[in-house]
């Protein structure tokens, strides 16, 4: 017998994920257990009001979530993210969380931290999450609440962080960069870096609403940074910029022949994960809401949808010139926000050119050339 029977491995380095040519296996899924949120952030792509009764009624029950999670576990899932909306708004949050843990899932939670109470602290101390991620909208009350649009939310956010810190419950901070907090981004970056164990990340790309609500989309567009502001911000944060510089050759195709000109999805979509909305809509990527690319798990099984959707999506092509002669063969496609999912949210089509994305890609290219 071999002497060493046990080993401890970080989740990301488990041997099971390193096996070459392993078959497609579900590893991770995210559950938006509610679309409701107690905040009303200007840039949010999903939220409905905390007291939205229709949204509340449409939420998957604990039993429905549990049944789907059973299927996910049987397909191999090891890790699950609870997000929203604000997941802590659900009165049965503890039941959902524990049901998932007891299936042998590692559970992460994305929260705005404003609803964290001592009861949550006791619970998380007893049943630790894999991670808690919290978005920082601002480091001042004025900026935070300019974005959240809820008076008192900044104090609630700070109180939540203090409760977690005092209890020694680890959390990771992240940020969205937008017009309302751009002036404070350096403070936000510093604040996050001081509080994080690992490197901090921020996202300057605001994508549009899943429900395609025109009024809310206008609010998101109004918050978007210009391409010049995005590259300036990237350059002002060395870890991100150096990573971009280091990988620029990998991120750009050397010549158009490297690219498949008609296939829509060249990413790793559906290789190991899926997303599920509060009302049971499954997607292979959280932003992919095209009706041909989703399944209703109140009517279909996960096991069937997991195979069926993947086969369908991977086969999808476009022969429109707008696609085949532009984005499909563009050498900058990986520096771009362009992907069929985001493009659908922007234009209602999976294969359209999006001017704003294109401008960002070219600005990033220019920025990387200047500094390389």
């Amino acid at each position, binding site marked *: 017998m071999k*002497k060493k029977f*046990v*080993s401890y*491995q970080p989740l990301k380095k*488990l041997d099971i994920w390193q096996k070459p040519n392993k078959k497609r*296996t579900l590893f991770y899924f995210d559950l938006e257990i509610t679309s409701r949120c107690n905040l009303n952030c200007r840039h949010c792509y999903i939220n409905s009001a905390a007291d939205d009764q229709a949204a509340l009624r449409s939420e998957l029950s604990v039993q429905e979530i549990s049944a789907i999670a059973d299927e996910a576990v049987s397909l*191999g899932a090891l890790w699950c993210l609870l997000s929203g909306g604000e997941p802590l708004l659900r009165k049965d949050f503890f039941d959902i969380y524990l049901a998932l*843990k007891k299936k042998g899932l590692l559970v992460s939670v994305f929260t705005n931290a404003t609803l964290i109470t001592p009861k949550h602290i006791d619970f998380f101390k007893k*049943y630790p999450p894999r991670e808690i991620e919290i978005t920082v909208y601002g480091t001042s009350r004025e900026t935070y609440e300019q974005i959240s649009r809820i008076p008192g939310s900044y104090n609630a956010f700070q109180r939540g962080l203090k409760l977690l810190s005092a209890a020694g419950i*680890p959390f990771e901070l992240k940020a969205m960069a937008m017009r309302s907090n751009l002036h404070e981004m350096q403070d936000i970056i510093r604040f996050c870096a001081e509080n994080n164990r690992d490197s901090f990340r921020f996202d300057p790309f605001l994508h549009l609403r899943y429900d395609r609500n025109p009024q809310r989309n206008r609010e998101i567009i109004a918050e978007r940074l210009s391409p010049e502001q995005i590259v300036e911000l990237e350059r002002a944060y060395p870890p991100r910029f150096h990573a971009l510089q280091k990988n620029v050759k990998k991120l750009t195709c050397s010549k158009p022949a490297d690219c498949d000109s008609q296939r829509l999805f060249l990413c790793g979509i559906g290789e190991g994960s899926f997303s599920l909305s509060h009302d049971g809509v499954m997607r292979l990527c959280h932003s992919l809401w095209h009706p041909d690319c989703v399944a209703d798990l109140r009517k279909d099984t996960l096991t069937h949808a997991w195979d069926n959707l993947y086969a369908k999506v991977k086969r999808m092509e476009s022969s429109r010139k707008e696609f085949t002669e532009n984005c499909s063969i563009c050498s900058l496609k990986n520096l771009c926000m362009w992907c069929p999912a985001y493009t659908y949210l922007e234009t209602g089509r999976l294969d359209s050119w999006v001017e704003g994305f294109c401008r960002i890609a070219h600005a990033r290219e220019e920025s990387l050339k200047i500094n390389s």
Partner: protein
Amino acid sequence: MIRKAALDSVYIPSEDVVAREIEDAIIIVPIVSGITDVEDELLTLNDTGKAIWQKLDGRATLRGVIEALTTEFSAPAATIKEDVLGLVSELLRRRMVVEVSAE
């Protein structure tokens, strides 16, 4: 106080962990805190550890587990005994298994 594993005792996986078999590996996922020494690390069992774990069924004593393993593996019985006691002691220390009354 946590005792060392004993040959005439019977053990079973704790309700505080879930053993997941993924891609032929056994991964022990803790439900409660204090099971692993480091956050975000999971205990995995190799083939030998897996063979031992799967025999901790709440019925067989460790002596019985060792006898069964001796027929499956070509290693000397003394080595198997040492390995089983070593692993189960570690699992006990980590609260991943608990002792139950023999039937």
